[in-house]
């Protein structure tokens, strides 16, 4: 009554994972929360929020809702919003949906593309979809 419940869903975790400077990893990372990388990663990363620190090096595909590059990244990135810090180096393709910010001193050697937020369904598509559903339910 007096206190707001601060209880989160069972799956959510407070804080973030941190991969230290001497961390070397080759493979896939799938993080449902926030992750911070100061080590060397080769492979694909999927995360809600990804921060590549100054000492961090990432090679491979990155898919994150929020991406912060303060270190080195080589590869394709797909994200909602991206921030590149003053020592950030980015090579490869960058696709973002909402916002892009680059600070002075950053080094970008990449193709940058903004895509629309969500592609809305056309009316004809909707009708087709409904018809298809009706047909399916009759069967």
């Amino acid at each position, binding site marked *: 009554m007096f206190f707001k419940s601060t209880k989160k869903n069972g799956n959510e975790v407070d804080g973030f*994972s941190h991969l*230290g400077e001497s961390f070397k990893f*080759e*493979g896939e*990372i*799938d993080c*449902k929360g926030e992750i911070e990388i100061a080590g060397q990663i080769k*492979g694909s990363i999927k995360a809600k929020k990804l921060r590549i620190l100054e000492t961090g090096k990432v090679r491979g595909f990155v898919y994150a809702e929020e991406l912060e590059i303060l270190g080195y990244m080589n590869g394709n990135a797909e994200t909602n919003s991206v921030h590149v810090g003053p020592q950030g180096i980015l090579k490869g393709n960058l696709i973002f949906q909402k916002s892009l910010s680059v600070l002075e001193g950053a080094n970008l050697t990449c193709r940058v593309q903004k895509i629309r937020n969500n592609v809305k369904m056309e009316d004809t598509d909707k009708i087709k979809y409904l018809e298809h559903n009706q047909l399916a339910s009759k069967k």
Partner: protein
Amino acid sequence: MPSIILRDTILQGNINQKDSITIDGVVVGDITADEIIVNMTADIKGNLIAVHNLETAGKVTGNLSSNKIHINNTAKIKGQIKTSNLKVDEGAQLEVQALTNINKK
């Protein structure tokens, strides 16, 4: 800096760390580090090789090798244990082959 992997994170691949590493999440692959701490929520499929110390309270399927190993009461381990100093708490679930005399003179 030591690394920490929380329980919302899944890693597939081999990890090489010169420092200490704490794992709460899921790892599929081998882990090599100075010190490995496996917490209760962790699930590891792969070999753990620690130089100094290995502490586990989670689920591990694979071989464990370290100078010193401590297995907590919530641990579930399947595989082989190689160490010169082994400590197992009451309640730990083990399905292991243990070699505890290596490096001892």
